[in-house]
């Protein structure tokens, strides 16, 4: 196995174009698990950890730009945590401290798991994913980027640069149900924001369908919203929980989140 370590984004994109089979690795908290379990045997790893372009976050015309290499630990720190409270709360639920120090938002997008905890908070921020290749850059709305369980719209020669997200315009929260009180993959999760500027409530759930998904409503039209969110889900039975429970929990979470955010 080769490991390529580019030091600039241009170099990285060239390498990816030359070796489209190269598997990008950022924090490695998903990639290394795949390797350890022998579920993947990539011929080439493309190590993105030296790319300054992917690090950190910035403000861009009223929205927030998150670098693909932003870690959960960084997302939990002020002032970013105040601009995107749901993402900060979601980050707190991810793994343990070691995983939060290594795991990244870009990696969560790359894996595109229905249980990815960064995804619901990004969805309620109307996130747009920034992709680049030697052919140029493009942006894809997150709901289009997520094409199926562990599938996304990334082309073979592309890398994720980051995501642009709408800052909170009102309260936000994130909740995650797991079979124990820490260190769990979500059985079902929910991010919700009350956007006063747009007069809208946006909710997004995880682990309750093939992809994390957004459901919105006008502020004046919140009757039955929890049931609508639950109805938008298409959960399955698996080792972590039953479909019936997931639907039930989703409506409870939504009702609580609405109340929390309207207070």
């Amino acid at each position: 196995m080769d490991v390529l370590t580019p030091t600039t984004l241009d170099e990285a994109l060239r390498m990816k174009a030359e070796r489209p089979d190269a598997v990008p690795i950022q924090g490695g908290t998903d990639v290394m698990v795949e390797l350890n379990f022998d579920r993947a045997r990539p011929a080439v790893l493309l190590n993105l950890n030296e790319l300054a372009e992917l690090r950190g976050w910035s403000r861009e015309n009223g929205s927030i730009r998150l670098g693909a290499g932003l870690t959960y630990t960084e997302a939990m720190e002020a002032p970013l945590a105040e601009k995107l409270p749901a993402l900060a709360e979601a980050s707190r639920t991810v793994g343990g401290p070691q995983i939060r120090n290594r795991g990244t938002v870009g990696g969560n997008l790359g894996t595109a798991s229905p249980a990815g905890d960064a995804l619901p908070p990004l969805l309620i921020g109307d996130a747009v994913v920034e992709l680049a290749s030697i052919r140029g850059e493009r942006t894809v709305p997150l709901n289009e980027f997520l094409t199926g369980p562990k599938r996304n719209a990334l082309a073979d020669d592309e890398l994720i640069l980051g995501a642009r997200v709408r800052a909170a315009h009102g309260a936000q929260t994130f909740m995650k149900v797991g079979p124990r009180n820490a260190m769990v993959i979500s059985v079902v999760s929910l991010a919700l924001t009350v956007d006063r500027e747009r007069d809208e409530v946006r909710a997004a759930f995880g682990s309750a369908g093939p992809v994390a998904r957004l459901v919105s409503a006008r502020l004046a039209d919140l009757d039955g919203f929890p049931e609508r969110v639950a109805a938008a889900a298409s959960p399955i039975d698996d080792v972590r929980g039953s479909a019936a429970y997931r639907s039930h929990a989703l409506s409870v979470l939504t009702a609580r989140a609405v109340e929390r955010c309207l207070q």
Partner: protein
Amino acid sequence: MNAPARTLELGRVGESVKRVDAIPKVTGEFAYSSDLFAAGMLWGHTVRSPHAHALIEEVDISEAVGMAGVHAVLTHTDVPGAKAYGLEFADQPVLAIERVRYFGEPVAIVAAEHPEQARRAAERIRVAYEPLEPVVDPERATEQEPIHDGRPTAGHGFRDDPRPNVVRSIVIRHGDPDAQGEVTVSGVYELGIQDQAFLGPESGLAVPDGEGGVDVYVATQWLHVDRDQVAPCLGLDPEQVRIHLSGVGGAFGGREDLSMQIHASMLALHTNRPVKMVYNREESFVGHIHRHPAKIWMEHRAKRDGKLVNVRARILLDGGAYASSSAAVTANASAFACGPYAVENALVECACVYTNNPPCGAMRGFGAVQSCFAHEAQMDKLGAELGMDPVELRLRNALAPGDSLPTGQKITGSFPAAEVIRRAAALPIPEPEELPRDALRLPGGSGNTTRGEGVRRGVGFAVGFKNVCYSEGFDDSTAARVRLAASDDGIAAVVHCAAAEVGQGVVNVILQTARTELDLDEVVLGSATTSSVGSAGSASASRMTWMAAGAVQLACRAAKDELERRGGDLEHGETIDVERVYHHRPTTPLDRETGQVTGDGAHVAYICAAMRVVAEVDVELGLTRVVWIGTAQDVGKAVNPQAVYGQIEGGIAQGLGLALMEEIQTQDGLITNASFTDYLIPTTLDMPPVEAQLVEEPEPDAPYGVKGVGEPPTVVSTAAVASALRDATGRQLTRVPVRPDEIVGLP
């Protein structure tokens, strides 16, 4: 929180002494069996069945044999001696012959220069299977095709049960099984499969001795019985197989059965090279037996005043594909089915069946956990029916010395059931915490799911008991050897005992006993190997403290006598070397038809504990936070109080895990959650602070009055946590682990 502030380095019996292995374990310097290394060693790998039940049509090793770095590829035809082994019954093939009976059963083994070469070679072994319908429903197992030819467990003095796939069935008839009460409650209770989930996976190193024999360095619970199973399969004499205890990363019963011992030895003898084997986490889940899942029906008949009149129970245990220690687990589940209560009449029917599910055997609590969950749920139900305080109801029925168990065995030693109940009930429970509070202090924890919505508080109570030491005539002894020699400042001692240190702290028991008996600080621990000292018996059944203390005490006293005979001093170079074997009082079998004791009694002694649990439950989401646990435990005499508190807290965590989350899930016999991603064990956020009281009523027959302490916390905590959840939710919660679905009332 209970641990005394100061611990000693060199203490005597009854003092809190720092564990000799504590610092190396915490700093990572301790060598576990997975850290073993020998120059020129090869790596072994096991080919396992992907089916729960199948015929093997062909095993084609031709491609694997020729691969780079590969030194051996062996199948059942290469097993040099007996083809099968087992703890009690030799029903388990060393490598599958013609048929596989469970998911993960070993079929072939490989040794290669590098673990990756071994793994790849294993992939090239082509096994042609013809899948058979697996027997997976224990309730139907006795009507289905037998999964073993003949009856591996028949003719061992067990009750004759002609139904197919019965490992053992027991009927205990006590008094008048038709006796009526004034109130009757009944229920059906279920427990899922729990795993020991030790952190150190199965691992070890086999080193050929160049003379046809082999030295096996391994993490195990019982060196001598490993040897007695390994040697016949290798076609060797017992002395040619030396088993050495290597660093054990947890056991909990899961290392009583063999795992890689015979396989690594076969590869080592075949290649004449040391061979190391280390299972990975996924493999570990199929590499050892688990706790028996159970379905239990119970009916309690009582007087209006709460006095129990009659307990009727039917218990079904799923033993999985091989017998392991199922027969003894069956006996425990039946003998303790009525709980630590005096009951004049009882009818207990218990059966353990073979299926193609994961094999089950010993796990901390050993049959008593399953029964306790059921009888304590019943006691809560009876209390509710009578409108009687649950503690009062239990006290009214508490078993005491002079009473008899349903097996007819009279309690003769210490049995402070009423005292542990009173002491646990008297522990003040914490006031409810104010809201708002940090999500970490609410059900759902870091998931941030509630700020108090839906949260109800409940208080649960449970009592349980079990036996110490093996039973039914299976009286294993413990040997200890003491060597005295002159040292610069007087006399120094070396103590050998083959007791397996599995994390429970027996090394300190040995040292503290020797220091006490010899009145000497200069005592060091000798190696635990089958070649240096006789058998210690198994580090299980809460027996090791009692038995090791007994053996070390005998050997030390003999050494001291000898020293006195020689005038109280030794010349330089002069030594005293004595070995003594300690036996507990003999036990005798149960009558095969009535389940009543014959002779002296089936058990040596009993240990009990009572527990009070405060839990908060989010009744809308079905999530739980156990807030506080208070317990009083009958320990006889605490040799090392700090270690006893440790055992109590760890044991509680394991029982709490079964109550709330720990379950091996299967589909048609295949394990679907063989990882720590999906087989969840409690984290520090799931485990509450524990307030523990030690009840020290010395056991008359035992050295210093000690009893065992490892199992009662696990026996009781599952039941006690479930009881608190019932109190909080008002639901029956008849199955553990309790699923959120059941708390929120989904079908």
